[in-house]
């Protein structure tokens, strides 16, 4: 083997400059991301504390005396809002659990088993989601009514879970793919059943995927409007329906109340995201390439 080239010291000053430049560019990019993501949201939140008259003022007031009148109105005039948020929570949590459980189970099978049927059914999983949901509701509405499921939490839980179970299955499959098969085998050797392997070995290692799925399903269920509109009236009515009533086509939108409602609605989701972030970042430990 020929002799290695001697060690050459790079220009350290240039490198330091490059390092600083990199840090500046990165910080600038992060700042850009924050503005892009948060500005419209901030606009909503800030506006919810402004008086109706000030909301559309141009140039907008940066400094103003905050008012809580819209939040008060939300509690006193839109009495449906807070109870429907309870319904939203039940439905969103239920749908998240159902979708996650179903997709962990099927994602595991798609990852660990192989045959022609399975490979083909991946296409089916996706193709089935191509028909616009509004069209699917045409035949569903009378069926749901006949089953006496109309205006129940259950119907929304099932619908929301179903419309996300395809994607979640695919997500779980990719994450489980990255867990070495030797781990399953080790579990089997240790006497675990397939279900125990899944719950005790696979699930803890696929937390990232579960967290991503949970965020998707929860956020969708939390904000969904079309199905909620068609399948609920009173008992299972969700918060987005109230929000849409605030956006009133007869007497005009009550912007302050709308923004206040949206702000309140944003809180649980933000909390969930911050909670799920832990699992997302946790990451799979190194060494999984050997599988």
């Amino acid at each position, binding site marked *: *083997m020929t002799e*290695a*080239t001697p*060690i050459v010291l*790079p220009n350290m000053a240039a490198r330091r400059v490059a390092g600083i430049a990199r840090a500046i560019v990165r910080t600038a990019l992060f700042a850009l991301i924050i503005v892009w993501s948060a500005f419209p949201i901030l606009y909503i939140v800030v506006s919810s504390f402004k008086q109706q008259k000030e909301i559309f003022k141009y140039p907008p007031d940066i400094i103003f005396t905050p008012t809580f009148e819209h939040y008060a109105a939300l509690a006193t005039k839109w009495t449906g809002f807070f109870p429907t948020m309870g319904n939203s929570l039940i439905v969103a949590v239920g749908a998240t659990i159902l979708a996650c459980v179903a997709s962990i189970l099927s994602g595991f099978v798609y990852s660990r088993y192989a045959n022609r049927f399975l490979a083909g059914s991946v296409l089916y999983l996706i193709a089935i989601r191509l028909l616009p949901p509004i069209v699917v509701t045409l035949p569903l509405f009378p069926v749901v009514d006949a089953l006496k499921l109309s205006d129940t939490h259950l119907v929304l839980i099932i619908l929301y879970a179903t419309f996300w179970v395809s994607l979640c299955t695919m997500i779980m499959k990719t994450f489980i793919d990255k867990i070495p098969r030797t781990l399953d085998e080790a579990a089997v050797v240790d006497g675990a059943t397939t279900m125990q392997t899944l719950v005790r070995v696979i699930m803890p290692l696929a937390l990232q995927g579960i967290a991503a799925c949970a965020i998707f399903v929860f956020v969708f269920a939390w904000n969904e409007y079309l199905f909620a509109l068609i399948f609920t009236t009173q008992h299972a009515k969700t918060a987005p329906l109230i929000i849409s009533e605030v956006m009133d086509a007869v007497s005009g939108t009550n912007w302050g109340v709308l923004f206040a409602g949206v702000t309140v609605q944003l809180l649980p989701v933000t909390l969930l995201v911050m909670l799920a972030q832990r699992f997302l970042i946790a990451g799979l430990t190194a*060494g999984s*390439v*050997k599988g």
Partner: protein
Amino acid sequence: MVAINIDRFVKRYGSVEVVHDISFDIKEGEFLVLVGPSGCGKSTILRMVAGLEEISGGELRMQGTRVNELSPKERQVAMVFQDYALYPHMSVEQNIGFSLELARVPRTERQEQVKRVADILQIGHLLHRRPRELSGGQRQRVAIGRAMVRKPHLFLFDEPLSNLDAKLRAEMRGQIKRLHQSLKTTSMYVTHDQLEAMTLADRIICLLDGHIAQMGTPHDLFDRPANVFVAEFIGSPTMNIVPVTAGAAGGRPVLTLAGGGQVGLPAGMVLPALTNGGNVLAGIRPEHLSDTPTPGTTAHIEGVIEMLEPLGSDILVTMQAGGATLTARCTDKGQFQPGQPLTLHFDPARLHLFDSKTQMRLT
């Protein structure tokens, strides 16, 4: 000529210091092995040398130049990882040739180099496979090939054999040894297996809890262990270590065992300066105990056979002698029976004495 200086290395994770002020040099072409139990800091030191871990304190010099701030590429090191770290989306050929590709080596030359390395490692027929289609041993060869294909200043091995079975491990060990003999590239090798360390190393550094326990050639460590830890860590089966009280009786040194038994040493033998009132640890390797006296085995100890472990031509004999348990490696001629009395002979020069408190060798 010194190739690498490791000067007062310190590694801290937050407030936890895991490597404490360690210094050593590696000579040009030397094969240095860092050995020690898990958690001793050996991999951390290796990764600091590689440029994968920041050096919290101290300096790393290559050819006399400080390289702390340089990237692995600039340090011109090559590394074999414990889990191989093969790129799952690349073929064997691409995996091996990746560094050359990054260095913009022309395609034909690259293929030549990869081919040459693959032939040396006998993986020429696997070049178009993906890592997941390879066996453990084949992956290991690819990982070594990837490191070899470059002309690094320094080869780094991070427990490269620990995921292999015993037979493959022995085979690969031989291969690495041969490679080093033909390539003569300066190498730093991390392992927890003392046998690997003994067979491969020009020089061994034995680490404990982020400190150097002993540094030296395999013979140094085997023959003159600096402390009980090294004495027990190096060599298999493990050295017999027995607490004794050293004294003198009838003009010659005598070791008294805990159970009252006495071992007389030849008159004229000079014991090192004793501490703790003569309470010391005495050590002797099983292969230095023999059931038949030979010239030079001027001392002996008596006891009763407790257990036998045949190894084929040899046999491990465990004996109870006055409250101490000793293991001897003897030639097996079917002469032993558990419960029989036995006299073991040894050369007093093979006896190691350690301070019972500091565990350090008494010289």
